[in-house]
């Protein structure tokens, strides 16, 4: 039975596991990759697809810089093995703007100066987009709690909260018609 599951089972211990054919759907485009089973989704994006907008700040799920949307939900790409992300719809910061038109949250980040070094910014924005769509952007206090998975060492928190409030207002006014 197990033998039927994976041809790799017969492999001698210590030998290199075979590369896996992995198909990743990112920002609406299908990418076929041959990956080491150890490759995380984040490293697949950064090292194999040159989608370096998703940032690596720890590789351990402790900083949030790698936040992407998976099937519409925010996740930490560094904690997902790429091979296990097959079949999921992944959205990264590169897929957020519509052509030249920035997403309202991207625009409000610039307007509110919601970053300094910019390294946590992709993760903050992707988490912020989810925070708004989840309905957790109702008050500054809510935003602070629901954005706490994204560290900003430059300390732009006050401005990030303002930017999310601005973008949430835009999205609720458009929804309200």
């Amino acid at each position, binding site marked *: 039975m197990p033998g039927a599951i994976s041809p790799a089972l017969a492999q001698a211990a210590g030998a290199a596991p075979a590369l896996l054919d992995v198909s990743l759907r990112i920002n609406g485009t299908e990418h076929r990759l041959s990956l*080491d089973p*150890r490759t995380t989704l984040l490293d697949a994006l950064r090292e194999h697809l040159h989608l370096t*907008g998703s940032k690596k700040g720890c*590789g351990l799920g402790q*900083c949030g810089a790698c936040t992407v949307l998976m099937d519409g939900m925010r996740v930490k790409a560094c904690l997902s093995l790429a091979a296990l992300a097959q079949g999921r719809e992944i959205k990264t910061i590169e897929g957020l703007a519509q052509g030249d038109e920035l997403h309202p949250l991207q625009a409000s980040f610039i307007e509110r100066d919601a*970053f*300094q*070094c910019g390294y946590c*910014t992709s993760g903050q924005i992707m988490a912020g987009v989810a925070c708004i769509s989840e309905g957790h952007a109702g008050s500054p206090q809510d935003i602070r709690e629901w954005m706490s998975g994204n560290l900003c060492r430059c*300390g732009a928190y006050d401005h990030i909260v303002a930017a999310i409030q601005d973008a949430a207002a835009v999205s609720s006014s458009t929804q309200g018609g």
Partner: protein
Amino acid sequence: MTAALIGKSVSRVDGRLKVTGAATYAAEFEVPNLAHAAVVRSIVANGRLASIDTAEAERAPGVIALVTHRNAPKLAYQPHKGLPDAAVGERLHVLQDDRVTHQGQPIALVVAETLEQAVYAAEVVRVTYRNEAAATDVAAVDPVLPTGKPAEWEIRRGEADSAFEQAEFRVDQTYVIPRENHNPIEMFATIASWEGDSLTLWDKTQWVHNVAEEIAAVFGIAAENVRVISPFVGGAFGSGLRCWPHVTLAALGARVDGRPVKLVLSRREMYYGVGYRPHTVQRVALGASRDGQLQAIRHEGHQETSTYEEFTEALLSATRFLHACPNVHTRHRIAPMHVHTPTYMRAPGEASGIYALESAMDELAVALSMDPVDLRLRNEPDRDEFKDLPFSSRSTKECYRAAAERFGWSQRTAEPRSMRDGRLLIGWGMASATYPMNYAPASALARLLPDGTAEVMSAASDMGPGTWTSMTQVAADTLGLPVERVKFTLGDTRLPRAPVHGGSMTMASVGSAVQAACRKAREDALARAGSNDLEEAMERLGQVIEATADVAPGDETKRFSMHAFGAVFVEVAVDPDLGETRVRRIVGAYGAGRVVNPKIARSQCIGGMIGGIGMALMEHSVVDPRNGRVTNANLAEYAVPVHADAPPVMDVIFVDEHDPHVNPLGVKGLGEIALVGVAPAIANAIFHATGKRVRELPITPDKLL
């Protein structure tokens, strides 16, 4: 004519790149045929390598090269000391011998086809050590004066000892700050690529020229043959001032391998090779008369350093001029240990020293039953009593007044535990802040194009404060062009030399160079074209007009004492049963000269405040005293502030200050002073809330039970 741009809240010119993920940081450059490197690091603090078994690692799939001290090329390591290097001692040489002097020291380098392969192979290199006794417990090391003239480290004015003994009111306490790590969210990364004897480095650094010069010295090649590219830096806070050994390792890997090599440190490695704010122990003795006049200040402090370099920072500098006092004695010592060398971290020296001084001032105010603002106002000096020079400008009184008013300080009741919100204890505290105005030689090039646009450049850096934007503003303002018509470039050794991006000196130095180059180019173009409209002149000339400018400070430092000053007021809420402290409000007022861009200046200030909250309440690299290992070398157990720690109210005030002496732009710098004073203001507020004086940071719940 375009309206003045200096002083305007222009949005960041690199904002679009940053919000779309298109800004390219060191590890993100696409270099063909790239191999990946990983480092094997020591797990002992002192000793010799007894054996290194690389057999399994060499057999591991994808491994291209494995370098240890046994097969590493002998590196030149010519003398080189950059400004951020320790003045005394010799930098760490990597893979040159079997000596281990600290935990995490690089002892082997693996180069492999992929990141996963390199990291795995590094993990299966088997190393044994001949351990030697190590000094790893900072509490057990006897501090010593640093090398040099004792008079540099022990500085006296008047007779502090006898004045203290005679003073009617006295405070004499010891304050401890544990080691803290910068922890920028971007981890250090270098891509190295050789062509013959020429090397290109894409690197995370606060000073591209220093990296080029250091690596040139290490490899014994000409600095002109090393190009360093670093357009975006994902935070650094001082950790990118020096050129650390991992840059050498990346270049070495590429040398051995013959292919370009990328080396990205792991978050754990960030605790072992890129410096940290050192553990400090400070004793402050203050003596005062009944009316609050300081009679004596004795401030001694020591800090950890490595065995191979003597790192020192300006721990006690501010004590010598911040408050008026006839009798002052400071003594700075170091505790050499088997650790890697600490380095400058945001507001190095001042952040630590002023925490102790301003905590002691608060204790003195309590002893005197005097308002802490009043105590400081009573000791406001009219000149720098240490240098015996006038201040070029000093707005402390305005800062106290403006911040106190905005804060509502007059509503404070002095008695500890006298202010409450339900079961929470409310505390209001304050502290002073200062940081020196630094101005260093800098160069810039301005190039005016016939289409009426301009390219301006300098090899500066932008780790977050907004150099890209503020330099564009200065250039556009000087040229009289709109911001959109000016393109500023930085972060490349091919550009005119800039000083280190630290010490809050970038605007003073690079800004002055940009202004001078643009002024020259503009005047040249207008004169040649016989016009007084630049766009018209350029069209008429139909050619490129270039001007370079080199600026350097004159003799102002001989005539003036030049510093930014500020005041920080904080409200905390402390749960008396559970020991949890939350900062509810923070108001900072700064006299920092001209503010070029209030919007991004505010960002710097609230960022410094958040850094100060971390310092006060949670940050602590927990070093195991038994072996010098950092037990919480990650971002889960090393707590930095998160969104939920940010106070609901953060207020930044720039008091109006025109200082014609500091530098051509009249700026003093903001990045560092924004962190200074925050930790003591919080500690003082916690005392006011609880009646409990905690003299060891961070003030975690266990210390308030």
